[in-house]
């Protein structure tokens, strides 16, 4: 018998600002698999990823990803400008109780910048540091929200290599992105068909409507 998937979602509906944005989402992500989420701006990719990360409850449906298994990377990198690259990364390694930060620095090509304060990094270098944080979390499911913003082509390739290594190590990844990452083995899920119907058309009413109706 095969082991259960890392993430499985059935009939999931998510809400942003109290209004349902996506409904009826079903997917399964097993070990070693990546799922790329696509869809136009405002469709609810970020909302879906935040729900998977456990930052907000789903409106309906079931979600079997343990929040303890998920490493979440948002639009913002969560870097402290006055701390150096290694201090930023060491902090997260300590929080997640993992060991050395050197593999993460090497994987994201940050070794030469290790003692620079984060405020003197370029936007792409900051992004690389934010992604290096994922490598020190040691968590199996990566939930990534537009991870390649401000990365150049070489860094995108570097990132794709890191994701492949993570998948090869038994991890999984859910990535919301607009560009081609070069991860041809990844499944692509277009979210457009899951756009929530308005309540008048039989869609789910969000909590906002319930409170203020």
């Amino acid at each position, binding site marked *: 018998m095969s082991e259960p998937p890392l993430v499985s979602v059935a009939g999931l509906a998510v809400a942003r600002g109290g209004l349902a944005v996506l409904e009826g989402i079903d997917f399964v992500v097993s070990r070693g698999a990546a799922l790329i989420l696509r869809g136009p701006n405002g469709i609810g990719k970020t909302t879906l990823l935040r729900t998977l990360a456990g930052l907000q409850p789903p409106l309906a449906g079931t979600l079997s990803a343990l929040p303890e298994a998920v490493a979440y990377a948002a639009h913002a990198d969560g870097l402290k400008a006055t701390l150096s690259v290694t201090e930023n990364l060491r902090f997260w390694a300590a*929080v997640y*109780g993992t060991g050395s930060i050197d593999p993460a620095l090497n994987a994201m090509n940050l070794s030469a910048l290790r003692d620079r304060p984060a405020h003197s990094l370029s936007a792409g270098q900051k992004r690389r540091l934010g992604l290096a944080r994922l490598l020190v979390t040691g968590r199996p499911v990566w939930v990534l929200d537009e991870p390649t913003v401000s990365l150049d082509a070489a860094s995108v390739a570097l990132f794709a290599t890191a994701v492949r290594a993570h998948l090869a190590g038994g991890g999984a990844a859910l990535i919301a992105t607009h560009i081609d990452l070069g991860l041809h083995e990844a499944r692509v899920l277009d979210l457009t068909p899951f756009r929530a119907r308005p309540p008048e058309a039989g869609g789910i009413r969000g909590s906002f409507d319930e409170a203020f109706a």
Partner: protein
Amino acid sequence: MIALLARDLALAVRAGGGFGLGLAFFLIVVTLVPFGVGPEGGVLARIAPGILWLGALLACLLSLDRIFALDYEDGSLDLLATAPIPLEGVVTIKAAAHWITTGLPLVAAAPVFGILLHLEGAGFFWLTASLALGTPALSVLGTFGAALTVGLKRGGLLLSLLVLPLYVPTLIFGAELVRRGVAGMETTTPLLMLAGITAATVALVPFASAAAIRVNLR
């Protein structure tokens, strides 16, 4: 959790961290009061306990909105909420870091500032004791206010309005303790009340703060 405390303290003492802001504000209040009420020693000595406690309270209030706002803006609060540390632990550590950077310097500097206000001999011990007992409650309650207002732009006004009523019991019993100490009266009641308020807030309020953050991050 120790890593989080170490990070917050490192951030506080580096450029733009705001360490010493509360202390400087406290010094300004205490030096300006004699100009306002006149230099007569008797008057100053009578109002000193109240002024010193009020100054400490306002100094505490000054840095509250930074507790979560900076982490919220740069996205670390989202990441901390998904990290293995329970959110209750995060808010407790945040309150502890706020107390170490704001409350503790006030406790240490209060005797010196007491001189500026003609505080009488016995008062120095009771002032330090009351601030040491009372200021942790100010930091914990302030963290709760900061958690409630974390997503708001310019939430400082709302934060002050929310938190000031919660500060009143600590202010009353803190200043009362110093007053009774100076007058040589029995001090057990305000001492126990002050300690009780602090113990109860430290034990219970972090749960409310964590719940407020969870709601605000949705």
